């Protein structure tokens, strides 16, 4: 995982601005997933990999980035390319060090109730990049043009 170097805008197909309300996550994620072109062929990777990654990113942004502050918002920018989906999630918090999160699968951490969100994002998406401040994450899911709809998710 490499930090994203700049704050350059992306030419997004879809932009959402969400309140810091975890109740809004589920519908927002469904809304984004349904807007993917060629959805049926990539249904499994969208349903599992992308949905999980986006859900966790939004949850982190609202809970930890914006610290539940209802006056702060989370911006979601999504680009649907021919072979990739790119989602950039920006919160209005101070940011954090993504390398400070320990591996939740280690025996000493497995009984801890939290710390699995970033781990799942890294496991399920092809790229997970934070900006230098740590308040913006970019998720990239690659879509194999030769993939059959019968093939499953995960394997990122």
């Amino acid at each position, binding site marked *: 995982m490499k930090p994203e170097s700049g704050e350059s805008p992306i030419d997004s197909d879809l932009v959402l601005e969400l*309140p810091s309300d975890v109740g809004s996550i589920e*519908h927002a994620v469904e*809304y984004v997933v349904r*807007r993917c072109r060629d959805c049926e062929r990539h249904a499994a990777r969208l349903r599992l990999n992308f949905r999980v990654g986006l859900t966790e990113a939004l*949850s982190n942004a609202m809970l930890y980035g914006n610290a539940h502050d209802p006056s702060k918002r989370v911006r979601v920018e999504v680009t649907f390319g021919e072979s990739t989906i790119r989602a950039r999630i920006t919160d209005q918090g101070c940011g954090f060090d993504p390398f400070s999160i320990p591996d939740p699968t280690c025996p000493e951490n497995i009984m*801890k109730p939290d710390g699995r969100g970033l781990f*799942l994002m890294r496991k399920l998406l092809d790229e997970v990049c934070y900006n230098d401040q740590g308040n913006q994450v970019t998720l990239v899911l690659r879509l194999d043009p030769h993939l059959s709809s019968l093939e499953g998710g995960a394997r990122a």
Partner: protein
Amino acid sequence: MIVRLYRRVAARLAWRPLSNREREMGFQVSRTGGVTLVEVEGQLIVGNRQELKQKVLEHLEGGDRKFVIDFANTGYIDSSGLGVLVSLSKKIREQGGELRLSSLNEDLRTLFELTKLDTLFRITDTKEQALAGF
């Protein structure tokens, strides 16, 4: 460019949060042969994990020690949902009880395997298997 601008505007207009009724999420709790069965309808996510925790802890405090949480009608569990299952399992074990899980679909099994939580829980294919084995 116009298409993209239209999509942006349409996205802003069409998106709205779902009400609790529209989400149709919930937990059905029943007692079967001395085992407390909790069936998760919809999702187990950051928005409703506390409700599940509260329901199970109420039964634990009431003396129940054997629990099955069934996911036959569950679409998705996020990391917060996984966390609450870990937390509940720990509390139930501390009281000498056990929490079993059943009916995980392929996606949910993948999440449990990636996080190695499949090593922490006894997981059965059906709720009947979980209940019968207690």
